[in-house]
């Protein structure tokens, strides 16, 4: 028994301490999106001066879609998506999503990432593309089995999922599950903030 191995400094069979350890090992529920957003907000804070901050607000951002960083994009997307709900109008304006830019039609661009090392195709489906598996295919990175795509999405709340190999419907593991289900399949929820609100 692993637990007994771990309790080598205790008296074996010490029921009280085993119960203590069992209790203390219970998972802790953290508001992941909010916490991660706060940390990444600090981490990505421009290093110097008001000028740099103003520039970061007024200039559109461009994506860096190197294969390596694409792996982290799925999680960062969750931070951005949920953070935009929980972090509306933060006191520091640069808390805006790092994965968002403006498209030509002025919709924020959202990068979706999905790890599927053995898949032959991955597609994004959602209410923004009429749940069409052919509309928004993801591209595979050269290594790591990570698929990604950037899509302009209008501000608001959206439901989406990934379709793997044309048949397997998957929610985004890095995003909150939607409370409702469309087509009997699990979906993920995304809230895109209005750029004009920042």
């Amino acid at each position, binding site marked *: 028994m692993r637990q007994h191995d*771990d309790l080598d400094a205790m008296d074996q069979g010490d029921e009280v301490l085993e119960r203590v350890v069992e209790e*203390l090992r219970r998972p802790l529920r953290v508001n992941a999106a909010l916490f991660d957003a706060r940390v990444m907000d600090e981490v990505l804070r421009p290093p110097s001066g008001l000028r740099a901050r103003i520039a970061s607000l007024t200039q559109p951002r461009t994506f860096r879609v*190197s294969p390596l960083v694409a792996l*982290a994009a799925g999680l960062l997307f969750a931070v951005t998506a949920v953070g935009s709900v929980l972090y509306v109008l933060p006191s520091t304006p640069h808390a805006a999503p790092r994965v968002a830019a403006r498209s030509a039609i002025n919709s924020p661009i959202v990068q979706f990432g999905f790890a599927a*090392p053995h898949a032959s195709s991955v597609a994004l489906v959602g209410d923004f593309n009429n749940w069409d598996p052919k509309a928004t295919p993801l591209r595979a990175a050269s290594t790591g089995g990570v698929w990604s795509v950037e899509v302009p999405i209008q501000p608001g709340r959206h439901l989406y999922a990934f379709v793997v190999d044309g048949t397997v419907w998957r929610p985004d593991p890095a995003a909150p599950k939607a409370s409702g289900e469309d087509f009997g399949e699990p979906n993920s929820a995304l809230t895109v903030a209005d750029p004009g609100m920042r």
Partner: protein
Amino acid sequence: MRDPGVSPVVELSDATLVDIVLKGESEAYATLVARYRDRYARFALHMLGNREDAEEALQDAFVRAYRSLHRCGDPARFGSWLLAILANRCRTAGGKRTRHERRFVSAEDRHYAIALDHPAEATAWREEIARALARLDADQREAFLLKHVQEMEYEQMSVVTGAGVSALKMRVKRACAQMRRMLTEGEDAPTR
């Protein structure tokens, strides 16, 4: 066949992610944050006794780790290095509170209870554990949590705490004895 929906969090090693971040892809740090957030939040909560202090200490630890990432001697052990920073933050935060408040956990029990995964089952037993933990010497509490909750080996604990293995074994042993006594005999006196 492997589950195609596996989270990216498990795909890259700590060393690889640290390397990516150091090469300028700061966003990749989010993956490290996600990887260690929950388990270290639990450690901080048990060290400090309330959620707000725990999250503040953990956030500060993540940011400090990022800013000094180039000094992480062994990126493959980023987790231990981060935990050392967090443990230090918890000691500092706990020390300040001890000086200023010198409190026992009764006022914080509610925070502690709702922070756990089953708030409806926040029993007197859970509160007793929180109270007993809070009454341990901070070094003993830290050693006990690292050994039995974080499930670390003494050698790892030594790296994290800077204390020797013998001293850590003694702290764990004493912590176990104190916890057992407080929880079975209803001892009310603080150990400090």
